[in-house]
């Protein structure tokens, strides 16, 4: 009897303590969840939502991984590209503030005599660049790989564009020209002409890298404004470049390049294809809608395979067959005539 009383009393004491512990445990957890939502970036988010998001990624991931290692999508950036071209990007005030601070730092750096890319050794006066025709100016600007580096190394290419404007006299002039679009069209032709069998690896890497980086221009306000209404011309230019890549892939000599088989590029034609698809959406939305899912469903294994690349380019070119209104009125550049 005594034992039972002791047990009863002990139980009555321990139970509230345990309840307190459990309550405190939940409270601490709740506090942590609240801690996340205090930040404006995640104000509308809670842990449950984040977990849910994560779960979506899990199912996506599982779906991909169930088919061996099919992990690469050559059109992964396509939707972002379309958004950046079609919509005006409004940045959060905090982001805008950070950007302004970055610009101020750069301006101070320039005022104190700072230069970039060792430009003091090769850059000419502003007047020289002003004196050039736009096509010549573009040729001079893209003669160095600076553009492709600057728009590649930042999360937001915008910062790269600002740095080019501020520290490169040539780009400063080019970006202010009303016919900048002519310079960029010329750049497509000029760079793709370097994808020929006589070019060494360095030239191929540089030319394809710059062609790849031209994609960033379609989110650059000054350029976007000039492309609007001229989408067909740029679509045509991108299709021509894509054909040139296809031609090069069929004809290059890996031994001569010294790459053990690879052509010196891989993602670069994918970027050109994405621009072509984005412009197709502007020029012929119905066509785009009919091909979108097929092209977006392409997946590759992680290890690069030139055959995959060839097939993807072929798929895009086949799907875009006839969409280019300029194509019929011009001599087709299948690449061979540039060699």
């Amino acid at each position, binding site marked *: 009897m005594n034992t039972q009383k002791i047990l009863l009393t002990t139980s009555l004491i321990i*139970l509230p303590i345990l309840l307190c512990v459990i309550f405190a445990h939940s409270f601490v957890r709740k506090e942590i969840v609240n801690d996340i939502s205090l930040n404006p970036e995640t104000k509308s988010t809670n842990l449950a939502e984040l977990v849910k998001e994560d779960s979506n990624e899990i199912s996506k991931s599982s779906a991909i991984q169930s088919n061996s290692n099919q992990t690469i999508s050559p059109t992964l950036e396509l939707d972002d590209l379309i958004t950046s071209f079609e919509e005006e990007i409004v940045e959060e005030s905090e982001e805008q503030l950070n950007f302004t601070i970055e610009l101020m730092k750069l301006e101070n750096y320039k005022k104190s005599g700072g230069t970039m890319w060792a430009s003091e050794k090769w850059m000419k006066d502003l007047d020289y660049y002003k004196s050039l025709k736009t096509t010549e100016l573009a040729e001079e600007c893209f003669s160095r790989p600076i553009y492709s580096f600057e728009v590649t190394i930042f999360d937001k290419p915008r910062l790269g564009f600002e740095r080019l404007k501020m520290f490169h006299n040539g780009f400063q002039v080019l970006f202010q020209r009303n016919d900048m679009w002519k310079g960029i069209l010329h750049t497509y032709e000029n760079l793709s002409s370097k994808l020929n069998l006589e070019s060494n690896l360095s030239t191929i890497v540089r030319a394809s890298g710059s062609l790849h980086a031209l994609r960033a221009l379609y989110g650059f306000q000054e350029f976007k404004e000039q492309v609007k209404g001229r989408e067909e011309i740029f679509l045509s230019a991108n299709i021509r470049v894509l054909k040139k890549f296809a031609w090069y892939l069929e004809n290059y000599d890996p031994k001569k*390049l010294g*790459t053990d088989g*690879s052509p010196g590029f891989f*993602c670069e034609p994918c970027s050109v294809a994405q621009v072509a698809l984005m412009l197709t959406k502007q020029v012929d939305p119905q066509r785009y809608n009919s091909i979108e899912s097929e092209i977006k469903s392409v997946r590759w294994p992680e290890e690069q395979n030139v055959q995959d690349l060839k097939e993807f380019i072929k798929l895009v070119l086949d799907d875009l067959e006839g969409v280019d209104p300029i194509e019929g009125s011009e001599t087709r550049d299948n690449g061979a005539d540039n060699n």
Partner: protein
Amino acid sequence: MNARKIFITRMLQMLIFVCGVSCVAKAATYSWGDYNTNCNCKTAIVGTLTSADYDQSQAAQDAAWEDFKAAYEGLVDSDRLGNRTYIYNCHALAYTVFCKWLNGDQRTQFHGYSSWCWEAVSNGEIKSSNYHSCFVNNWGKCGPQFYCKNNQYVYGASMPTQQYIRH
């Protein structure tokens, strides 16, 4: 009456036992260490869909790196340039692997961010959390994409492709 007391006692004992087991299980799931550091870091399964990469051959990477060094004189291999976040593809181009943060070492800048953060650590695990303190003194990146800590994966060495296990 005795039977009633015994019944209540037994019920309370069972309740205590259940609560005890529950607490132990809970403690195993969320370690106290996590609360102490306010850091619920975990290894996560993540979307491994990635964009196509640059040519990964040694020769092509070397060519790109030579151009990059020429453009940004004075860089050394351990420097980082730019703040680029890489989509989960740690093959990465040579010059992006050897990059330099413009504002210097930004490790502490992970304080103040609470968006979802990722870190691909050298053993191939992906750490994810929205507790920024998980990434203090570690390279990591907050945002929808990965920052690959890929110094170990230069020149086309493969990132692990195994299914990541989520705790």
